[in-house]
C-alpha cells in the first residue's frame, strides 16, 4: 500500500485504518471497490488460464492435449468465470463503485452495508464456482442449454447454477445501489443534465442489472429444479420445452452484453473528453443513447435463436429490432470521433486504450450486422464467427474499456502514477495480441468451423495456429499492467489531486480521497466537461 512513506502523511481512505478487519468490515465504497478489484483480477487470471489451455488444445487438429470431456469443461468454465465473475462486475463493481459517489459529490453510496453485502455474495458465489472448478467442473457450455444440462450432463450443473444464482444477487444489489444513489445523493447543483456521461451509462447499466438478472436467477433455479426434482419444464421427455429455456436465458444474457459494454462506453466518454480537452460532442445524444441501448437491449434476445426452431415471423421481428439497437451504438462512436475535432489530443495510455476501444468495438459492432442479417446468420451462427464477434465486443470493447479506466483513475485510486512507457507498451501489446487472436476466427467461422469443437478438420489448422500465437501476446499484454500497477503502489511517482487536468468532481478532491470523499460537500455551478476552465496538467506530454 502507498502508505507510511512520510512521517506525517495526510489521512485518506487507504491509511485511515489498518488490519484485515478494517478491510473485510468496511462500508467505504472505495475500499469495497478495491476488494472487488482484487477478487475479479483473481478470477480474470483463472479464466485467462483456461483460455490459454483451450488455445493450446486447438494448436493441432487432433484432440491431443486434454480429453474431450476436459476440453468441454475448459470452455464452459472459461465462459462462466469470465462472464459472471469478471466481465459483469468489472467496470461497475470496481470503477463504478469507486467513482459513482465521487463523481456526483456524495460521501458514499446510498446503502453502504448493502454494498459490502454484494461483495460477500460475489465471494460466496465465487468460492462455490472454484469448488466446482476444482472438484470436476461443469460441461454444459456457459449457456446451460436444456435438455443437455438438465437430463444428460453428468457434471456439477446444480452447483454451478447455484454459484451463478448467488453471484447474480451481488449484481442486482450493485445496480440497486447505483440507481438510488444517482437519484438521491447528487450534490447541490448536480442536475441530471450536468452528470458526467460515466454516470448516465452506469445508470442505464444498473437498470439492466435490476430488471434482467432476476430472470436469469429464475431460469437457473428452474434448471436446478428440473435436474434435482425431475420437474418437467424444459425437457420434452417430461413434457417441457427446450426453446423456453433459450428464450428465458437470452432474455437476460443478451442485455448482459450491455451490462459489460455500457460501462466501457462510460469510461470511453470520460477518457476521450479528458485527452481531447473538450466537452463530449453531442452530450445529450450520447447520454440518451445509453438509455436507448438499455431499453432496446431487452427486445432483441431471440436473435440468438434464428436457427433454433423459432417461427419465421418472430425471426423477422427480432432481426429488425437488432438493427435498431445498433443505431445508438453507432451514434456513440461518431460522437467520440467528433469530440477530437479541434481538440488538443494527447497520446497517454488511457487514450491509447480509448483508441483501441473505438477500433475494436466498431469491428465488433459491424460484424454484429452480419449476425443480425437472417439469411447470413444461418451460416455463421454457432461458428467461430460468433466467437470472434462477441470477443471483439466483450474483450476488445469491455476489457479495453476496463484497462483504460483503470489507468486513467489509478492515480486517484492509489495516489501514485503508473509508469507511462510501460503502460503504452502494454496497450500496444494488448491491441496487437487481441487482433491476432480473434481476427483469424472470423475467417474460420465463415469457412464453417463450429464453435466448441475439441478436434477439427486439418484445413482449419493454420488459422488456429495464428490465433493461438496471438493469445500468448495477449497474455503478456494482460500480465504487464498487473506487474507495474503493483510496482507503482510502492515506487510510483506521487500523484497530485488532478494529474491529467481532468474535469469532474472526483479530480477536485485529493488523491487518494479522504474517507468521506470531500472535505466539504461541493456545490456544482458548471456543466460537465468544462475543460475551458481547467488548466492543462504537467503530467500530460506535449507534442512538438
Amino acid at each position, binding site marked *: 500500500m502507498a502508505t507510511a512513506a512520510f512521517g506525517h502523511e495526510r489521512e485518506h481512505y487507504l491509511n485511515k485504518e489498518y488490519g484485515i478487519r478494517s478491510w473485510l468490515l468496511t462500508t467505504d465504497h472505495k475500499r469495497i471497490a478495491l476488494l472487488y478489484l482484487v477478487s475479479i483480477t483473481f478470477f480474470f487470471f483463472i479464466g485467462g488460464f483456461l483460455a490459454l489451455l483451450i488455445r493450446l488444445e486447438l494448436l493441432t487438429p487432433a484432440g491431443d492435449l486434454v480429453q474431450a470431456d476436459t476440453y*468441454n469443461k475448459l470452455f464452459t468454465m472459461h465462459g462462466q468465470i469470465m462472464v459472471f465473475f469478471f466481465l459483469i462486475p468489472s467496470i461497475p463493481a470496481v470503477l463504478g463503485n469507486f467513482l459513482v459517489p465521487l463523481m456526483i459529490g456524495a460521501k458514499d453510496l446510498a446503502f453502504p452495508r448493502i454494498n459490502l453485502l454484494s461483495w460477500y455474495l460475489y465471494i460466496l458465489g465465487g468460492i462455490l464456482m472454484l469448488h466446482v472448478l476444482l472438484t470436476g467442473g461443469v460441461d454444459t457450455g456457459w449457456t446451460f442449454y436444456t435438455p443437455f444440462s438438465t437430463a444428460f450432463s453428468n457434471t456439477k450443473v446444480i452447483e454451478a447454477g447455484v454459484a451463478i444464482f448467488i453471484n447474480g444477487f451481488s449484481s442486482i444489489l450493485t445496480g440497486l445501489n447505483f440507481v438510488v444513489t444517482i437519484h438521491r445523493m447528487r450534490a447541490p447543483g448536480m442536475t441530471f443534465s450536468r452528470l458526467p456521461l460515466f454516470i448516465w451509462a452506469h445508470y442505464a447499466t444498473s437498470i439492466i442489472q435490476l430488471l434482467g438478472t432476476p430472470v436469469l436467477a429464475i431460469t437457473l433455479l428452474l434448471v436446478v429444479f428440473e435436474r434435482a426434482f425431475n420437474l418437467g419444464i424444459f425437457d420434452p421427455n417430461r413434457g417441457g420445452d427446450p426453446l423456453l429455456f433459450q428464450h428465458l436465458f437470452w432474455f437476460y444474457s443478451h442485455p448482459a452484453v450491455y451490462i459489460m459494454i455500457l460501462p466501457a462506453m462510460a469510461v470511453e466518454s470520460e477518457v476521450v473528453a479528458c485527452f481531447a480537452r473538450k466537452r463530449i460532442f453531442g452530450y445529450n445524444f450520447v447520454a440518451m443513447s445509453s438509455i436507448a441501448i438499455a431499453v432496446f437491449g431487452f427486445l432483441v434476445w431471440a436473435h440468438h435463436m434464428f436457427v433454433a426452431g423459432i417461427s419465421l415471423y418472430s425471426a423477422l421481428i427480432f432481426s429488425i429490432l437488432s438493427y435498431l439497437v445498433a443505431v445508438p451504438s453507432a451514434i456513440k462512436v461518431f460522437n467520440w470521433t467528433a469530440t477530437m475535432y479541434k481538440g488538443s489530443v494527447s497520446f497517454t495510455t488511457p487514450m491509447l486504450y480509448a483508441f483501441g476501444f473505438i477500433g475494436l468495438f466498431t469491428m465488433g459492432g459491424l460484424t454484429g450486422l452480419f449476425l443480425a442479417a437472417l439469411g447470413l446468420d444461418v451460416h455463421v451462427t454457432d461458428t467461430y464467427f460468433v466467437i470472434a464477434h462477441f470477443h471483439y465486443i466483450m474483450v476488445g470493447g469491455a476489457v479495453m474499456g476496463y484497462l483504460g479506466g483503470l489507468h486513467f483513475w489509478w492515480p486517484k485510486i492509489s495516489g501514485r502514477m503508473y509508469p507511462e512507457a510501460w503502460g503504452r507498451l502494454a496497450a500496444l501489446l494488448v491491441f496487437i495480441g487481441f487482433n491476432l487472436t480473434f481476427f483469424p476466427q472470423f475467417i474460420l467461422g*465463415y469457412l464453417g468451423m463450429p464453435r466448441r469443437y475439441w478436434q477439427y478438420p486439418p*484445413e482449419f489448422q493454420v488459422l488456429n495456429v495464428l490465433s493461438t500465437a496471438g493469445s500468448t501476446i495477449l497474455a503478456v499484454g494482460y500480465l504487464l499492467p498487473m506487474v507495474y500497477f503493483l510496482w507503482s503502489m510502492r515506487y510510483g511517482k506521487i500523484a497530485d489531486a488532478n494529474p491529467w487536468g481532468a474535469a469532474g468532481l472526483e479530480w477536485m478532491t485529493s488523491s487518494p480521497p479522504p474517507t468521506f470523499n470531500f472535505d466539504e460537500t461541493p456545490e456544482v455551478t458548471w456543466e460537465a466537461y468544462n475543460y475551458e476552465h481547467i488548466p492543462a496538467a504537467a503530467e500530460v*506530454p506535449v507534442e512538438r
Partner: protein
Amino acid sequence: MFDNLPLWPARASTTAGSVDALYIFLVALSLFVSVAIFTMICIFALRYRRRKGREAEQIEGSTILELTWSAIPLAIFLFIFAWGAVVYFKERTPPRGATQIYVVAKQWMWKLQHEEGQREINELHVPVGRDVEMIMTSQDVIHSFYVPAFRIKQDVLPGRYTTLWFHATRSGTYHLFCAEYCGTQHSGMIGQVVVLEPAQYEAWLSGGLASGSLASNGQNIFQQLGCVTCHRSDTQGRGPNLVGLFGKRVQLEDGRTVIADENYVRESILNPSAKIVSGFKPIMPVFQGLVSEEQLNALIAYIKSLNQPPAGAAATPSLVSPSTKPQEPKE
C-alpha cells in the same frame, strides 16, 4: 487455393451464392466504414495533437449532424435487414415436390432414412440438381445439422421436427457438422454429404440393400401395431380415415383447426389425447416409448403416401410423395 489455408468455403448449393453475395456486401460495407472511422481518428488525433500555446476549441455538438448520422446508418441497416430477410425466407421455405430425407440425431451420430428405403449413418448421398428437404428430430439433446458448403444450418430438437432444404449444384464431398454443443463427442458428430451426378446417384440408390421403401416399412409397422383396425380406409373406423389426410386442415373437437403436418402426426401417435379430431372419442392408446424415432418417420412417410392415388396395387404405396405444403417449424 492453398490446401491448409483456405480462405473461402466451397460453394455447392443454390443458397450458397445468395448468402455469399450478402456476405461480400457486408464485408465491403464494413471495410468502408471502419477505414472511414480509423482515418478520421488518425487525422483528428494527429492534426489536433496537444501543442504548446494551442487550446482546444469547445464545440457543443450539432443536432443536424446527430440526426444525419442516425438516419443514414438506420437506412443502411434496414436495407441489410430486408436483404437478409429475403435470403432467410428462401432458406426456410422448402419448394414443393422436394425429395424428403428423414434425419434422426443422437449423441453422437447422424442417422438418415431415404424415402427409397436406404439408411445411412454420418454419410448422406444426394443428387445434384434436385431439391432435398430434411425432416429432422433428435433422440436426446439438441443438435444442429450444418453443411458449410451449402450455407445451411438448422437445430435438431428432441420431441418435434424441424426442417431444412437445399439444392446441391456441384458434385463432391462436403463436411457435415453438428453445430449445437451436444456433449462429450460433439466434435466427433461429423460426417459427410456426398453429392452425386444424377446417374451416379441412381446407381447408388440401386446398389444398396434397401428392404422396401420407407413408406412400405411404415405400412408394415402400421399393421403390426394394430393401427389399421381403427384407422380404416372407409368411414366405419373408430379412428379418423388417414387417406388424403396429410397436409390438410383438421377440425378438432375443441373447435380449433390444425394443419396435419409432421409434428401433428407425431403428437397424435405419441400422445393422442392432446388433439382430438372432431367427431371421435379419445380412445387411442398412448404410443410414447413404444415406437422409435425411425419407426415414427416410417409411419409418417406411410401416411404421406396415402395422399397418392394407389399406384398399381394398393399394398405398394408410391415411392415419391410430393410435399403438399410450404412447411415451417412451429414455435
